């Protein structure tokens, strides 16, 4: 197994939200489709509720203090009370994450095409990228805060972009390169140019790799933005809000902000999932046996 195999395997394993992958019935909402939908998502919903109830029950039963672990009911009421503030902070952080995501993914795509095109570039570049991918890049946040202004969203976008760049670049390059030999021979036999082969074989082939890495990147981008904010930033972003409320012992408020972060994370992920289905309806994971 090569190093690159490890990376893609890892990226599948860390795909914590993969429970959402599967067949969301599009179009006709027949009773059967609804039943199928329910059959698929009810268990997940059920276990989610069980966790919340256990959490509420146990914190009450053992009289756990709010500053240790607030009860879900406290978090929800804080979430409702601070609705405007916490969603405001959420969307600021989301915009940093999205900005960095777009920059990072675009740069990754450009490098991937270059790496697929020029062997020398690839040989010089990939080992470095694989090493960089294995280092905890969020640790750069204080340095980026120093380079760009600490209160500027640019410093957070920069961290996000760098964090997102490597997994997307490595996986997409891999998808562009690891094309079935038979498909390449087919293209040669019909006298296709390298550009034609890139467009009609390599790019479609790289799409599943690209989306697998972008799904991971969507979660990473929010994590990176919030962690970067912990190192300093304006007061009205999630990271700083969480730190400030925690310093004031307002833990339910901090948890409400964490709730917002996870809702945004899941929503981001689902948007990418939808895009994936739209772009490659032919892919194995969407096949139904009907």
């Amino acid at each position: 197994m090569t190093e690159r195999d490890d990376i893609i395997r890892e990226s599948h394993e860390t795909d914590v939200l993969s429970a959402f992958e599967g067949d969301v019935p599009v179009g006709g909402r027949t009773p059967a489709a609804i039943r199928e939908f329910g059959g698929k998502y009810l268990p997940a919903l059920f276990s989610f509720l069980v966790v919340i109830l256990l959490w509420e029950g146990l914190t009450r039963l053992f009289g756990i203090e709010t500053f240790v672990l607030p009860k879900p009911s406290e978090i929800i009421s804080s979430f409702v009370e601070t609705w405007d503030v916490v969603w405001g902070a959420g969307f600021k952080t989301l915009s940093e994450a999205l900005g960095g995501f777009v920059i990072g993914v675009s740069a990754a795509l450009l490098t991937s095409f270059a790496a697929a095109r020029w062997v020398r570039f690839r040989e010089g570049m990939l080992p470095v990228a694989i090493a960089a991918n294995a280092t905890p890049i969020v640790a750069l946040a204080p340095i980026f805060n120093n380079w760009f202004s600490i209160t500027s969203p640019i410093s957070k976008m920069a961290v996000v972009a760098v964090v997102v760049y490597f997994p997307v670049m490595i996986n997409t390059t891999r998808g562009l390169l690891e094309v079935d030999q038979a498909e390449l021979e087919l293209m040669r036999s019909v006298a296709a140019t390298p550009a034609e082969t890139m467009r009609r074989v390599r790019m479609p082939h790289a799409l599943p790799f690209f989306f697998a890495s972008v799904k991971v990147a969507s979660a990473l981008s929010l994590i990176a933005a919030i962690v970067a904010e912990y190192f300093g930033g304006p007061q009205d972003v999630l990271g700083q809000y969480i730190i400030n409320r925690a310093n004031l012992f307002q833990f339910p408020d901090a948890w409400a902000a964490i709730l917002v972060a996870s809702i945004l994370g899941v929503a981001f992920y689902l948007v990418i999932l939808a895009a994936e289905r739209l772009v490659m309806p032919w892919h194995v994971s969407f096949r139904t046996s009907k």
Partner: protein
Amino acid sequence: MKMVVDARGLGKVFGSGAEAVQALTNIDLRMETGDFISLIGPSGCGKSTLLRLVADLLEPTSGELLINAKSPSRARLDRDYGMVFQSATLLDWRTVRKNVELPLEIMDVAKEERSRRASEMLDLVQLELFADHYPWQLSGGMQQRVAIARALAFQPSLLLMDEPFGALDEMSRELMQQEVLRLWGETGISVVFVTHSIPEAVFLSTRVLVMTPRPGRIKTEIAIDLPTERDLSTRESPRYFELITEVREALRSGES
């Protein structure tokens, strides 16, 4: 008669030094328009290699090779041949129709013309009803038929097939053979067909070339004098069995 394939003293060595493998040696092959030639021989004797040389997917290390009186690479660029690989090699993300259109897209054929020709080809392999299916929705035999339609879409004068029915069961195999013979009769194309199956080679071909293993050479050439119209009754005719025996003995001779 026009010479479609003209090979003289063709040889192919893979690798170099101590690890060199002489895959083919001294191959002489002359093929005329309308010929249906089968290559048969033990595994590893160089059948695929010979087909790949003709297709300009490999370069010969010795000898001369002309396709339609041109260099193999010129012939490839002119799209003189269509190739059907052992596995159908359809592109997963394209529908059946789009797979058939692939070579036409690369040739910059206009959209309407592409779609017209794809329909025609799908008619020919009797898959009109599956035009908008994806490859994974098709059986192995249907996928191979799509691959044949794709190879014929740009009307090449030569069809190269490398064990195209290797993965099929006996029944579908016989159906496909009938299909290929029908196409061959209707289009007047020349065919080079690689197979492991003696009955298949005899049933399909005008000539069967029996090859020896390492280094691959053409050991015997057997002309198949069965009537041009071949069907189930051909498979039951005494001459068919005689020819099968003849090929089998040619394969065996010189062994042990």
